[in-house]
């Protein structure tokens, strides 16, 4: 069936394959996908997959018994059901069935593109990986990007157009819509677009931009606004103030020695987070004997704050003041700054003051290699001042550069939506086309956008899902998923990528550009034509260039050239003075995009719902996070539901106590509590948008917190329960030996600090078998580089068909992730150190799991791999008990029972789909090892280091994970295993793990005075 499946699906319905194949095959797929035959085939192909992973085996064993009883009655009759092979009628040129192909494309989030390579197996995209050639990716991919595959196969995506009139729901065709569009266009011609408005989600697509401009020419009186609930507009505005015009900052961490970040989650919550993380991870290994230092001040604990050497927990509203304090200290330390930038905002000796002083000292040391970064949630003034400081430090050009803004004239998102709301309220807008986005759900609360929308006579909504907004619109148009569409997009630095489809739209969706084109009377043009046209106009459209753009995934030299904008000190000063100090007190609510679901658009994605939050390890929920002290003050515990009210609106959320969160701050993630989000999203978390206003979109002052007396079970992937003091103490004791670390200075003094000598003396009681394999696989994980972002977890999930088990099961400790990121807090709960430790199977040479398995379902390979053989497993779970790392995962149920045939198309056919009752675990991506090995042999060449890259290592933004052959002394992994920082955890148990960790290095400033950034 798996193989049968791939044949039937694949050969039968071979999709894109990029260009050479032309469109014919997509058509054939479209027909197929629609045809009942196809559906039925999936139906009959997949149930076996779902039922028992080893359906054939089950059948086989049953047959054995049958056969025995029927021994004398024509046994040859006994055989499992027929399988059919569906070969092509016409096989595409150069296509080999069952051999995956990779296609370069791009995914866009909030107007910034991420270049990716998509692995397509017999026409089914099954895995998204970063595109090394793309500046924002450098080969890595974020969780949401990798989960795009699952989103594309989501059976709950809208499959048809919908027309809602007077309470009834009809299903029109695209032709009906085109009719409407042309007629509408005609009427608009007359009025010059008066009463017509477009609300688009942010996009960087040159094609869309071009169409937009033409639209504005044609309908000058029309209104075009852009809205994203999560945007960097404050930064844009702030820099506009400082430089007299919007510019886009680009950070260069590779050149930074001292970074001061205020609410700046620059390693994770930034369009170029992957790139930042790569450079950060590279530098933090201190290979050159030096490493950068980071100061982070933030209200909520973030990945970046966890990575920082000095962290200050401070309410978001105090950042401006802190920045002025910093300016003050800089000035005092001798940096020439205009008076009025700095101010003594905090009492001398206060933590804030000390933090600022320390940072200032280091910045001054680093000068051009210093960098001040402010997060997107901070008001523009703070950004302006930060820009001023960078200018003063001479950092511009080294650690930060400025690029032109793609649309200088664009209204900021908040203005835009407010303006539109006003127009709707006045009734000056009769026709509103919403292209993407979900404003009815995520627009600022006080606008009451949903009501206005419902009142608008003609509304059209283009969207992947028939969501909250669609349900209030007259027309809903199914949108083609990026992996199904032609298009283009620009990276943060302007680099253009062509978006190419991996498969024909499953539900006949169309792209944003196509819809616009329809309005411009170009309905005849497909997205492909439109994209090519733009490409031809802007990048000289020879087929040659187009082909290269497609295969590279980027258009050469399309990045913006850096500008050298002139800073306006007065403006900065004005901005600085605008920063109130000391800020008003009161409980502050900090809203933030969820680490996995972003603004909520990914809410129906099981992988992302179940991906633990890097800091809280919370899954399937958002929670009101509180610092331990505040929790005590409010007399609430983990899981108590509290009511948060501000500005007359309130929401109820369960409490989650997070060490290291600023006092007087409640954190709450956006993106949960969808009403029309789909079956997966249903019941996950609570909606925070009601508390979000245009005036205070991020930090809401004066929030009232009261207990409701109710409780909610929170599904965290770690600490499945509140740990008692005894456990706390013990955990504290153990972390030190699990995650070994030293400051840079200590490391210089004693490079071997992490070596474990205790176990080295241990001797085996028996004569150990040595492995005869020609390769000996091993892994090294650098804890200095790891920032705990969790990208590896999703990569592994996508690569290895790891099931999603759901909220209740996670709460019961039954999550299935093969590689988890262990998160430990150490030290003072008010200001803890946060440590991350990715934990895949350690592939111990003396694997404790093996000797206890009664059926030898887990045994060692000659190449030193701890093999788990699903089809031999009877499920005693003894191996899991005996695994000191607890990396084994058991299928307590048939986890794929409910999974729809469409979603199953995302399966990786190279990996068995495990059924109920078997144990599973990390395999070091054996399927990749075997594929590479066979390829090498077929080419009659030896395996080279780097031929094999497991999914986790491939996607790791910081390259913290390295895999390879330990027998080859020159391989990267061998080098790392010899590295002085290398150690294995729980070595004293004599398990001889094949996965070694490289001890973590930190770079705290020496106590005040001789603070010195390594350089």
């Amino acid at each position, binding site marked *: 069936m798996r193989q049968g499946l791939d044949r039937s699906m694949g050969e039968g319905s071979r999709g894109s394959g990029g260009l050479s194949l032309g469109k014919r095959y997509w058509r054939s797929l479209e027909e197929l996908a629609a045809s009942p035959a196809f559906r039925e085939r999936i139906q009959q192909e997949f149930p076996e997959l779902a039922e028992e992973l080893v359906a054939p085996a*089950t059948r086989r*064993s049953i047959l054995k018994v049958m056969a025995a009883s029927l021994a004398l009655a024509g046994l040859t009759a006994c055989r499992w059901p027929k399988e059919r092979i569906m070969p092509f009628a016409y096989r595409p040129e150069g296509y080999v069935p069952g051999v995956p192909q990779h296609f370069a494309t791009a995914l866009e989030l909030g107007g910034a593109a991420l270049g990716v390579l998509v692995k397509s197996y017999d026409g089914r995209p099954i895995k998204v990986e970063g595109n090394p050639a793309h500046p924002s990716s450098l080969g890595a991919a974020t969780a949401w990007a990798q989960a795009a595959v699952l989103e594309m196969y989501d059976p709950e995506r809208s499959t048809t157009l919908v027309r809602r009139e007077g309470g009834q729901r009809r299903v029109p065709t695209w032709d009906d819509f085109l009719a409407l569009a042309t007629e509408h266009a005609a009427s608009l011609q007359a009025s010059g677009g008066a009463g017509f408005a477009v609300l688009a989600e942010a996009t960087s697509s040159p094609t869309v931009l071009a169409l937009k401009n033409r639209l504005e020419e044609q309908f000058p009186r029309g209104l075009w606004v852009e809205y994203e609930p999560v945007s960097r507009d404050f930064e844009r505005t702030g820099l506009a103030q400082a430089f007299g015009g919007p510019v886009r900052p680009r950070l260069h961490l590779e050149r930074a020695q001292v970074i001061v970040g205020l609410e700046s989650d620059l390693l994770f919550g930034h369009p170029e987070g992957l790139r930042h993380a790569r450079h950060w991870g590279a530098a933090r290994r201190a290979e050159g004997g030096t490493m950068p230092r980071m100061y982070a001040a933030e209200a909520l604990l973030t990945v970046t704050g966890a990575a920082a050497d000095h962290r200050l927990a401070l309410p978001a509203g105090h950042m401006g003041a802190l920045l002025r304090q910093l300016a003050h200290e800089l000035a005092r330390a001798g940096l020439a700054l205009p008076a009025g930038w700095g101010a003594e905002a905090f009492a001398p000796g206060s933590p804030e003051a000390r933090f600022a002083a320390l940072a200032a000292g280091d910045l001054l040391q680093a000068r051009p290699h210093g960098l001040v970064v402010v997060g997107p949630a901070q008001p523009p003034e703070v950004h302006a001042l930060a820009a001023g400081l960078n200018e003063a430090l001479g950092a511009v050009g080294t650690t930060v550069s400025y690029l032109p803004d793609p649309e200088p004239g664009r209204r900021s998102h908040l203005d835009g939506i407010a303006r539109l709301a006003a127009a709707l309220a006045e009734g000056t807008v009769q026709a509103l086309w919403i292209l993407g986005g979900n404003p009815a759900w995520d627009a600022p609360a006080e606008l009451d956008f949903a009501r206005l929308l419902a009142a608008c006579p003609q509304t059209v909504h283009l969207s992947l899902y028939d969501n909250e907004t669609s349900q209030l619109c007259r027309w809903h148009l199914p949108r083609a998923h990026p992996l199904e569409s032609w298009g283009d997009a620009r990276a943060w630095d302007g680099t253009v990528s062509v978006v190419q489809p991996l498969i024909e739209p499953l539900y006949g969706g169309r792209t944003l550009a196509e819809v616009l084109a329809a309005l411009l009377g170009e309905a005849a043009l497909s997205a492909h034509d439109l994209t090519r046209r733009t490409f031809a106009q802007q990048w000289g459209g020879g087929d040659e260039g187009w082909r290269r753009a497609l295969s590279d995934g980027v258009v050469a030299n399309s990045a913006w050239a850096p500008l050298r904008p002139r800073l306006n000190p007065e403006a900065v000063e004005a901005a600085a003075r605008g920063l109130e100090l000391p800020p008003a007190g009161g409980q502050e609510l900090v809203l933030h995009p969820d680490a996995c679901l972003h603004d909520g658009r990914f809410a129906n994605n099981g992988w992302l719902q179940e991906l633990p939050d890097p800091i809280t390890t919370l899954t399937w929920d958002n929670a009101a996070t509180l610092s331990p002290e505040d929790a005590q003050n409010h007399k609430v515990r983990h899981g108590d539901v509290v009511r948060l009210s501000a500005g007359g609106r309130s929401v109820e959320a369960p409490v989650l106590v997070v060490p290291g969160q600023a006092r007087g701050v409640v954190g709450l993630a956006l993106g949960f509590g969808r009403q029309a989000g789909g079956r997966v999203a249903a019941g996950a978390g609570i909606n925070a948008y009601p508390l979000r206003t245009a005036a205070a979109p991020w930090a809401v002052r004066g929030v009232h917190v009261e207990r409701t007396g109710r409780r909610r079970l929170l599904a965290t992937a*770690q*600490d*499945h*329960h509140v*740990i*008692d003091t*005894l*456990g706390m103490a*013990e*955990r504290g004791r*153990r*972390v030190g030996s*699990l995650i070994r670390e030293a400051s840079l200075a200590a490391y210089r003094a004693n490079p071997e600090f992490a070596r474990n000598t205790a176990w080295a003396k241990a001797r085996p009681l028996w004569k150990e078998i040595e492995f005869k394999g020609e390769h000996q696989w091993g892994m090294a994980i650098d804890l200095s580089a790891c920032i705990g972002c969790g990208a590896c977890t999703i990569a592994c999930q996508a690569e290895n068909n790891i099931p999603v088990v759901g909220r209740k*099961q996670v709460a*019961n*400790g*039954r*999550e299935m992730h093969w590689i*988890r990121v*262990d*998160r*430990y807090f150490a030290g003072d709960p008010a200001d803890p150190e946060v440590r991350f*430790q990715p*934990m895949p199977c350690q592939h111990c040479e003396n694997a*404790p799991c093996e*000797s*206890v*398995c*009664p*059926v*030898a379902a887990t*045994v060692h390979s000659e190449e030193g791999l701890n093999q788990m053989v699903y089809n*031999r*497993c*009877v*499920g*005693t*779970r*003894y191996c*899991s*008990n*005996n695994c*000191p*790392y*607890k990396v*084994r*995962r*058991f*299928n*307590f*149920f*048939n986890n794929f029972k409910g999974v729809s045939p469409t979603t199953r198309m995302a399966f990786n056919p190279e990996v068995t789909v495990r059924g*109920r*009752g*078997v*144990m599973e675990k990390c395999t070091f991506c054996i399927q990749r090892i075997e594929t590479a090995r066979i390829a090498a042999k077929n080419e009659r060449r030896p395996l080279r280091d780097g031929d094999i890259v497991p999914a986790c290592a491939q996607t790791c933004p910081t390259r913290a994970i390295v895999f390879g052959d330990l027998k080859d002394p020159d391989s990267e992994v061998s080098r790392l295993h010899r590295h002085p920082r290398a150690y294995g955890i*729980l070595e004293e*148990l004599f398990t001889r793990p094949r996965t070694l960790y490289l001890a973590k290095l930190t770079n705290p400033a020496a106590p005040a005075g001789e603070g010195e950034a390594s350089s």
Partner: protein
Amino acid sequence: MSAVPLDLDNTLERPGERAPLVLGKSDLASITEQVCEIAERPRPSREWWLAFGTSASLTLVLFAMLGYLFWTGLGVWGINQPVAWGFAIINFVFWVGIGHAGTLISAILFLFRQKWRTSINRFAEAMTIFAVICAGLFPAIHVGRPWFEYWLAPLPNQMQMWPNFRSPLLWDVFAVSTYFTVSLMFWYMGMVPDLATLRDRARSKIRQIAYGIAALGWRGSGRHWHRYERAYLLLAALATPLVLSVHSVVSFDFAVSQLPGWHATIFPPYFVAGAIFSGFAMVLTLLIPVRRIFRLESLITPRHLDNMAKIILATGSMVGYSYIIEFFIAWYSGNPYESFTFLNRALGPYAWSYWIMFTCNAIIPQLLWFKRFRQTPGLLLVISIFVNIGMWFERFVIVVTSLSRDFLPSSWGVYWPTWVDLLTFLGSFGLFFTLFLLFLRFLPIVAMAEVKSVVPAAGLELGPHRGHGQYWGEIPHQHDEENER
């Protein structure tokens, strides 16, 4: 049931005189009558029906739970990561432990010539068989894919695969199945002469045929008796090390792993002591009511209770000692994981279970130092029930506390049973009592032939061995001195 009527008290030690093992004026016929009458009653009492109805319906609950389990998957239980073993294994060890008393009484006491065993060994052996059946059930159902369980047997197959004989679980399979087979043979063999008695007394044709087949045509031939006794002695000699081995092997399931709190050399003796402890407790729990209901006080005398109480006291103290020494070892080994595990047992989230265990197993049995507690059936019953509870919790503590908090704090967890867990456990009691009640109804619950051989009426005060009746399996021409007075 309070004090014992004096004429039925054989617990006083009269120097120079051997206390009678059977009380009252019982001769061969009366013993036959007294025991067979129970199995021959035309219809069982209302109490029996009540008990049977209850336990039978509990058995149905068990089967319902199994059906649900097999249909849905192990997820219906409370087990998770890291606590991958839960009630199933706890109950398994609990029942296996109980299944020790029978063979111990019949085999070891037999070899030590403790003739008082004769009145209770049949009963205890029956209990053993049924307990082992319940025990065997759990490992069988606790695996993820029961339909592949035959892979644990070394059968040739097209995969050319063999089981892994290095796994303690496989040792377990062999140990428990061997123990069951041998116990069963031992029990049945001992029963053959009594089945013959029932056959010979039977009135209805069905009973005559049924018991006739069961008795294998036994006719008390002297030549048969000779080989019979020899075989019985040999079985006893074989069963004795077996009893000790079984729970040792069960303990290997834990001791051979490397989990803190499991990986301990003390486990085999500790488990065996615990097993005998719980086994005798269960024997008493069943025996005391039965002897009362079926008026068997003259055969199962206070002295029997007293002896068993002493064994409970002894083994209970051993168990208590193990509890304490475990702490010592944890501290003395200097192994931080080990020490934490034990601190965690006594003070952690599962401390309550630890202290239930400690009180029931190590403290309460100490009351048996007092004669009154040993010889008042009521009190003894209460104590033995406490021991049963305590021993179940011992297994709970061992399995759950060690698993829930092992090496990496990141993967610590908690375990709570689901309603399926609880009903399955309850159901296993149903199965146990169903079988037991059937035993009471249809089989000779006291080994008549053996008891007869120790009553004076056997007339054996004549001849070389006067005064103490027949030694089953005594090696001929070999008498112990004290009897030569």
